[in-house]
């Protein structure tokens, strides 16, 4: 990710640290109109589901590693074990 992304994410962290629950939920209720795809559909429902079911590796890793997910869906047990080992060694930070 670039500086624009990093700055944005830092500001968003700050935002979520300071916003009250009430204000956040009010804003969320105002924007959630049920239009278009769900986040889970857009990012890949299987990805999100498998993330929850597997282990606490980084959400980033799981999404970035679409290849990783595809192997789990279609690969051999040997493939899965090999990729799982690589995933465990990944230096990615834990999900936010």
């Amino acid at each position, binding site marked *: *990710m*670039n500086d*624009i*992304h990093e*700055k*944005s*994410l830092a*500001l*968003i*962290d700050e*935002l*979520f640290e300071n916003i009250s*629950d009430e204000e*956040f*939920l009010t*804003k*969320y209720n105002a*924007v*959630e*109109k*049920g*239009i*278009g*795809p*769900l*986040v*889970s559909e*857009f*990012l890949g429902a299987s990805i999100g589901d498998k993330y929850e079911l597997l282990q606490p590796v980084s*959400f*980033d890793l799981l*999404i*970035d590693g679409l*290849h990783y997910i*595809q*192997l789990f869906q*279609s*690969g*051999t047990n040997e*493939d899965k074990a090999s990729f799982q080992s690589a995933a465990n060694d990944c230096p990615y930070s834990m*999900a*936010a």
Partner: protein
Amino acid sequence: MSRVEILGFHTCKVTGGAVFLLENAPFISQSSDNQWLTQGYYFWTDSDHFAKIWGRVGYDNQYAILQCNICLDSGLLLDLVGAVTDQQYFQRLASKFKAHLVKVGGNINGLTVNAVIDFYRGESERNPEVFPFLAIKAQDHYEERELIPFTPSATDKMILGITRQQLCVFEGGLATITDKQVIFPETFKKKSDQIIEARNLEGIG
């Protein structure tokens, strides 16, 4: 910062005629529309293929197509189709939003892409750096497409078929939309071409 130029195709009603459309299209989406990338000017990208399909389906075949160039700094485009870093970033956005919604006891089951983007766009009104984009490009999975292995022994597969890509230019990015011409229906195209040619002869942009 590099510039990005995208060929866009905007489908709209034929109401008003060629001159009106050339002057006034594209039209910003309304709250009643399925504006899943939030409110903005919507385009199909690169080809008029889906613009025509949308015209047949969404406008009962009574439609026109406006072709445009959308030109902007790459940093102002959130490209969820072709930029892995942008995809990574959006996943982080969604993840943070989702985590906070869970934290405050909200229901995440119906969380939509539209809501996530709309929330951050709202926050960017106070600080543009929160969500500093003028446009978003995304694609949806519109049908089952054939998977074909990369090699005979590969387990990894490539998805065959064209992707349905949309570009949403926010209202603040209107100035990025240039080189407008009506390309469909044919009668409108002819009129549009005449007007543009006349402008070029007169030295008008």
